């Protein structure tokens, strides 16, 4: 009986994954070149962001968490309060001509380290 239900659960699961795909790849800016379609990019905000996301598109540069590769980002939508230079962010988008065109509203800032002291910006 247990075997039957395990089989049923597995069937449901496989059905789902085949229908809904295999999740969004989460990559760093350095891995972006050459990707197609929507990806989720994790990195640190560097330089001076411009724009506010609503009237003007927010433009900023993302860098690998522990590397040097960067990518410019264009974003429209809500900008979380915690967003600023030096923060780690996650954003969904597609690479177009070397710039990441972000999915509106997909910008997420990580809660600044709870278990490490807050660094002075």
């Amino acid at each position, binding site marked *: 009986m247990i075997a039957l*239900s395990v089989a049923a*659960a597995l069937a449901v699961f496989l059905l789902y994954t085949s229908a809904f795909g295999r999740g969004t790849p989460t990559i760093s800016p350095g891995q972006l070149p050459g990707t197609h379609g929507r990806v989720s990019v994790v990195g640190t905000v560097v330089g001076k962001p411009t724009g506010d996301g609503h009237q003007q598109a927010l433009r900023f540069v993302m860098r690998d968490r522990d590397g040097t590769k960067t990518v410019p980002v264009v974003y429209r939508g809500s900008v979380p*309060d915690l967003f600023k230079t030096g923060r780690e962010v996650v954003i969904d988008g597609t690479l177009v001509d070397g710039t990441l065109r972000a999915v509106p509203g997909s910008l997420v800032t990580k809660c600044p380290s709870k278990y490490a002291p807050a660094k002075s910006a």
Partner: protein
Amino acid sequence: MADLGRAALIVTLGLTVYAAVAGAWAARAHRRRLAASAGNALFAALGSTLVASAVLLSALLRHDFSFTYVADHTSTELPTSYSISAFWGGQEGSLLLWLLILCGYSAAAVFLNRRRAPDLVVWTVPVLGAVSTFFAFMLVAVSSPFATQTAPAQGAGLNPSLQNPYMLAHPPLLYLGYVGLTVPFAFGMGALLAGRTDERWIVATRRWTLVAWTALGIGQLIGAHWAYVEVGWGGYYAWDPVENAALMPWLAATAFLHSVMIQEKRGMLKVWNVLLVILAFCLSLFGTFLTRSGVINSIHSFTESSLGPWFLGFICVVVATSLALVFWRLPLLRSKTRLESLVSREAAFLYNNLLLVALCLTILWGVVFPMVSDLAVGTSRTIGRPYYDFFLRTFGLPLLLLMGIGPLIAWRRASLRSLGKTFLWPAAISVGLGLVLVAFGAGSSKPGLVAYTFSAFVLATIVLEFVRGTRATGSFTRLVSRNRRRYGGYIVHAAIVLLAIGIAGSSAYGSSAERKLLPGQTMRVGGYTLAYRSLTQHRDPNHLAIRAAVDMYRGRTLVARVEPGKNDYFAEQQVSNEMAIHTDWLRAEDVDVIADQIEPGGAIYFKALVKPLVNLLWLAGLVFLCGSLITLWPDPREERRLAARYYALAHG
């Protein structure tokens, strides 16, 4: 002072190692005094950990910045209660809290059971000692809260998002839950080591499991409330790995609470129960590993600390040894009882267990998938919300229905005519309600409609149970006091139903709107009109409060004045979102207004959400607590019966 703290922790480490080693030796060689001594070591460990905790707490209250930990997590401007909460606000301190609670639970468990079940306790002590040794070791050698430095003039302050009353309740409650699962695990392992096949270990730990499970549940609800009220995205659960980290052990513990009832009634599922308690405990360890190690991408994710590999190693050791233990004792545990019918209460409990474990494992898969895909194909892929929502519905809705069916079926076997009789009214009520709801437009969301209908079914069942029971026993209080576990359990089920209704309502039937407004302009959302009046600022001790005055109308009537805005914290140089929530009790919905972006000229980008029935979630928490307390309440008659059963063995 830091030296005292460090020394106290070293003493704790020594004691836990002694408890583990001497305890194991004493159990193996049947040495009575040595066993008592090992048990005492756990009491002493509580003492020395209390000393260490007192040192840290006093340093926090005195703002002694020579303690690196204190400087990193507090400032002189920080209100006292948050200085206290900074104890568990950081990596090292939270580990110390974990150890403190673990020592407390261990000491209490040993104290309460050493006379009643000496042959069981003698093996439980080394297990508790071993687990405590790990945490004590981490605190002494890897992540000490007592590092010192030359005291700076000012501390870094506590992260503003943690400066709220929730920080005082949420982590300690969660820890009381996580750590609490260690006790049934230790007793279960102790029973295996002692070669016991009876349910003594379950009887001994029943209340512990309930307490831990309740604490974990309430802790999560508080976390959800925190997310809802403070974080300001209008939601309360994001399927974030760290949130899931608490949900998974809770689901496993829920399954365990039900399956031990089967062992109690029918003597079946002994192996399953042991495996479940191992799963629950390992998931609680895994949960804290996820939260600390930074291995998984999470919005709560903290630094990639060096703790990760240690925790992972410990979890592997625990899994390996406990599974080996189960395998070794497998022949003893096999029971001869078979499931008599697929339509019986045991079967219903079994289905419930399978669904809970299935849900738990799918969440686990979703959480580790990024790590797995990274290892397998080189890119870590994250699984999004739709995955979790799908499985919550697939497994959760049948679970909801089962909550109603289970109590109506008798043990062993239920005939169709009995079923027909008992199902009639609840089914009729729920179908009727379903039709009414469709008429009111609830058909817009099919899962929502199903959830509502099933919920009605379950609530009808529960009410019927209470009514029938009261009629049979003559008085309501007598009914409940004679059957505390059953009727307390029904109340807990009612709480879960309320939770389901609240979740369905707020996710399936809400509305939202976003607009940029200048003072004087209005926007509409879900039947309300919001008018932005003005922008003000005022200064609090450690932050600047910026607030927008917004009037909320329903038609032409002014319903409320809300003040969404932001807080700008000086020392931490951070801005937090202060969402305004207006609760309309009559319409049973919340209207959330978020001042998303405030421009220098006074223009504000607003986001407004209407969330129907969301407050049922919090009400569910209260009902849950109430039901749980009833279930926990000691029953003198049952205590006497159990004591008589085990007396001979204890004094034989």
